[in-house]
């Protein structure tokens, strides 16, 4: 096994110096954090100036109550967030007003304007017209204010006590709490849950994809320049396989280590939620089990590849397969106790992602954790044996890629 370590050391030291590795080492966390933070940063950004919004109300009855309903939105400096301007009363030239409102919006004098049309059959239509239709925050506020206004008007029309309106419009928010061991409770936040679980699942996928790709490329290089023959005449295929997986795992652990450092630095500066590290030990365990399992698969499949082109093809297929568990994890967040999720907790391909997720969602029965670990360990053992068999023959097949039938016959040997 001494030679396995020599190979592992060589693979590790030569790969860690490559540009690809260094770039992925620092780029991956930046991309992930960027993706995770950008939407929240953008959607939570406060307006810093009052927005002027016009109102064209053909019925004339909505403007005043609408004004009251929008008043409660304030900027941080206490100024109103929205200033509504009545652009039209009842009997005026509708087309002309709309035209000038359009012009004012385009020229920037108005942020946009609300067009309320009431038809004779008692139906009401409202449009918010602005330069960009993508401002969900403005639209949401206007929608709520307008609908409250409508209900208020209707209620007062029917002679119902306006205090009832307050009751109707005050919906009660259900607070979500997660029960932890020892009866503690902690606020559960979808965003944090998503973040804490997905950050590890995505890291795992990225790591497997980047280091697995490196492994396949290096195997193809060794095959094409026949270095593989010199190596195989110096050690056994199993030593070579073990060396490659060890070296690769070393690279993976280095990545995790550096990423954890980056994560810890970000968490201590409150950029990353502290909750990410709540279940770090079991999460890391499944992380490493998953990494070794996927690496063995990469080695086995990679040894069949004979050309650079095939390597590219096969790595892109493998990458897709690696992303699948992450896709399965999404429904698991929505419904963590469904039978579907429990089944996925026992399938080797999805165990790492699902278990990482479930640790963050809530307590898992101990037997389920143990069974998952056992399944993972058995799968790793079997995948290494299978990879070894394919590897032994695969690394020496040049030129034509072996057919699936041949590969299966190698497995039987």
């Amino acid at each position, binding site marked *: 096994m001494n030679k396995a370590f020599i190979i592992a050391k060589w693979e590790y030291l030569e790969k860690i110096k490559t540009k690809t590795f260094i770039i992925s080492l620092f780029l991956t966390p930046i991309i992930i954090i960027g993706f995770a933070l950008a939407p929240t940063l953008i959607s939570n950004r406060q307006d810093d100036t009052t927005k002027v919004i016009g109102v064209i109300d053909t019925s004339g009855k909505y403007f005043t109550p609408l004004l009251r309903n929008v008043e409660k939105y304030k900027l941080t400096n206490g100024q109103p967030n929205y200033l509504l301007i009545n652009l039209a009363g009842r009997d005026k030239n509708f087309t002309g007003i709309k035209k000038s409102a359009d012009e004012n919006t385009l020229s920037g004098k108005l942020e946009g304007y609300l067009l309320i049309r009431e038809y004779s059959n008692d139906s009401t239509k409202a449009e918010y017209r602005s330069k960009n239709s993508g401002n969900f925050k403005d639209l949401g506020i206007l929608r709520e204010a307008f609908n409250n206004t409508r209900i208020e008007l209707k209620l007062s029309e029917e002679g119902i006590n306006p205090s009832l309106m307050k009751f109707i419009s005050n919906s009660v928010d259900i607070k979500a709490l997660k029960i932890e061991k020892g009866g503690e409770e902690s606020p559960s936040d979808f965003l944090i849950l998503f973040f804490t679980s997905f950050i590890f699942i995505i890291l795992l996928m990225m790591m497997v994809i980047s280091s697995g790709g490196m492994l396949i490329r290096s195997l193809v*290089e060794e095959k094409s320049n026949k270095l593989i*023959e*010199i190596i195989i005449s110096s050690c*056994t295929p199993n030593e070579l396989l073990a060396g490659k997986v060890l070296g690769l795992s070393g690279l993976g652990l280095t990545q995790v280590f550096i990423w954890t450092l980056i994560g810890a630095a970000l968490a201590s500066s409150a950029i990353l939620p502290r909750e990410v590290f709540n279940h770090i030990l079991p999460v890391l365990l499944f992380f490493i089990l998953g990494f070794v399992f996927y690496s063995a698969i990469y080695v086995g499949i990679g040894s069949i590849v004979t050309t650079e082109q095939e390597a590219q093809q096969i790595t892109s297929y493998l990458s897709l397969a690696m992303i699948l568990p992450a896709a399965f994890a999404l429904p698991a967040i929505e419904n963590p106790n469904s039978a579907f999720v429990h089944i996925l907790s026992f399938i080797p391909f999805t165990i790492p992602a699902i278990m990482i997720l479930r640790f963050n969602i809530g307590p898992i029965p101990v037997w389920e954790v143990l069974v998952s670990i056992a399944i993972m360990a058995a799968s790793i053992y079997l995948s290494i044996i299978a990879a070894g068999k394919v590897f032994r023959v695969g690394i020496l097949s040049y030129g034509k890629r072996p057919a699936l039938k041949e590969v299966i016959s190698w497995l039987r040997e």
Partner: protein
Amino acid sequence: MLEVNNLTKTFKDTVAVDDISFNVEPGKIFGLLGPNGAGKTTIIRIILNIIKPSSGTILFEGRPFTKEFFNAAGYLPEERGLYKKSRVLDTLLYFAGLKNMNKKSAITESIKWLSKLGIENYKNKKIEELSKGNQQKVQFIASVVHNPKLLIFDEPFGGFDPINQQIIKDILLSFVDSGKTIILSTHQMDTAEKLCSDIFLINKGKEVCSGSLWQIKKKSGANTIRIEFAGDSSYLNSNPYVSHIDSYSNYAEVQLKDNILPYDFLRTIIDKININQFSIIEPSLNKIFIDAIKGNSY
């Protein structure tokens, strides 16, 4: 001594190596010769445990050639290539390490070989920065740096200029003096003729001829005569003693019929053409090779 006994290797429906046996003695260069696709590389791969034979055995120093001999073998494959992005000395140390050489002696030996081949200045350069010839030198060093007992060279001279070819030849001959077991696989018959004392000629997986170079030449070289002359040589073609003639503008290689002695032949031509030189020759290995592959028997 390396003993190869009744080696056979079949791939699916083709027989790549068909019942081959030979012995390689230490202190000699053993020439494994044959045209492209003859099965030379397959034999080498089987000897080195890279692939398994369908049947037959390989013994080295009396024992099966298995894992324990990995460190005793050095191999230079025909197709060359190294890790392009890695540095020269690092690469050599890696291969020396794979042969279980300790780091200290690996460094001394690597440096010794690099300076022997005149490329010690490149030791910290990346392989891709070296010229092709120098890359080949690095690979040659990688195959010998661990001082192996058994050396297998597949076309070691390819890609070297004549000066470097000479350097490599001298190194090979120095290995002979130190009693190593050496297999040389090559197409370059003139080189094989100069270096190899034992020859094994293989074609389409089968043995064509084998033995010491001297024996083979004697066997196939009987009754070949080289005549240098001036004037018309057309007479030679009709000479009744001649079985085969290769004539060139001012010399000819003549093979006599069996039982005809060279001086009988000389007597018949002495008056007919102006002879500048008359010599009894051994055929070149090149000729033996071509004739053997074409199916001429000896």
